[in-house]
């Protein structure tokens, strides 16, 4: 299945089998877009996310982050298991802004 080179250093045009395949379903980011981000130098899940929005959707990357890690491993030679998922941010679940803003914090005092 692996028809493309393992490293993308210095390459901009890479042939991939299913360029239109969606990787991030929430934000509809395709395989080609992820590969492009990697070929432009993205080396972490966060860097891919910043360039493509993959992982910024409703599920907050729970579905696609692992796929992106696989692509990073496959194309940059990093060990899959050592690639951290994206940096966790609050809120870890989608929460309406007005609810978040209504924070009651009586714990200081």
């Amino acid at each position, binding site marked *: *299945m*692996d028809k493309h080179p393992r490293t993308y250093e210095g390459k901009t045009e890479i042939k991939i089998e*299913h360029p239109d*395949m*969606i*990787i991030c*379903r929430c934000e509809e980011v395709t*395989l080609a877009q992820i590969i492009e981000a990697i070929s432009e130098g993205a080396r972490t899940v966060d860097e891919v996310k910043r360039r493509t929005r993959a992982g910024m959707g409703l599920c*907050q990357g*729970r*579905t*696609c982050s*692992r*796929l992106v890690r696989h692509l990073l491993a496959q194309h940059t030679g990093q060990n899959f*298991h*050592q690639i*951290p*998922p994206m*940096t*966790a*941010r*609050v*809120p*870890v*679940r989608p*929460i309406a802004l007005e*609810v*978040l*803003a*209504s*924070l*009651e*914090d*009586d*714990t200081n005092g």
Partner: protein
Amino acid sequence: MNHVELAIIGAGPAGLSAAIEAASVGVQTIVFDENQQAGGQLFKQIHKFFGSRAHQAGARGIDIGKNLLGQVAASGAEIKLDTVVWGIFEGNKVGVVTNGRNVICKADRILLATGASENVLAFPGWTLPGVMGAGAIQTMVNVHRVLPGKRVLMIGSGNVGLIVSYQLLQAGAEVVALVEAMDRIGGYAVHASKIKRAGTPILIRHTIKEAVGNGKVEQATIVQLNDNGNVIEGTERTLDVDVICMACGLSPLAELAWLAGCRFTDVAPLGGLLPVHDDNMQTSLPGMYVAGDIAGIEEASTAIEEGRLAGIAIAESLGYLTTTDATVKKQAVNDRSEQLRDGPFGITRREAKETLIRRSLET
């Protein structure tokens, strides 16, 4: 709710068991879960569980869950359902949305028992309606009693894939095939035999190539793999299916642990990157504990034992149990866990757990 002694995040088998141990000796305990129902994965599991008498073997997961809930009620712990924990902050503070209110709860001890998330596989067509995770299908079939479709392709031969196949057959669907990329069935043979004798083809060294359909899954193409895992061209077969179920493994759901700043390590047999924990289930952050699938993908039975261990250790650290009493209780738990982590399937997990605990001592 502004201050509790123990805040447990996740009311699955691990969180509930910890609550039982801690609250029953006096620890003021609250359990948060975003679901409407407590029990975590257990309420989807209508099949009989393995284990020994001490683990209620032979009982169905759902009944084990009911039993735990009864014990929680007796222990005095409070369960808050429909309550999302959205953040963890310095000073052991937990951000909680409950009843539409957003509250910060300060806890002397925090136990993360958030379980796992399902891995997905990307293939052309995987975003079509009808391609679903095994967990979602289990919820539909076993909890809501609706069939997602009539003809199913199952991907993955771990226990989850095997069990969900069986439950789909019970619900009246046909499992057209189960494909597995490895050269052997991943889960227990007894589970495989059940679906095999009911007529489900189990195809090892096979995977899905693509799903096609107009607005929803109508067909799936499967393909054979060689010993290196590469596609053997020309072996494509197209199946008429309306559901493709992905049972491709679970990963620890550890975002809150990342957020809190727990130290992680990579232990592949337990599901990849995990927060390290010591033999009391305490992470690298004092006062922050983990138990269950977040601390390594295993089983409900081991999640229950880990939860108990964490609950006992937490009660001890808060002074509700003497060291002598706690040691006796922990020993009993560890003996039971050791039984579960034995045999050709369990031993890898036992060794991996030992690695994880050893790494917690490194700096």
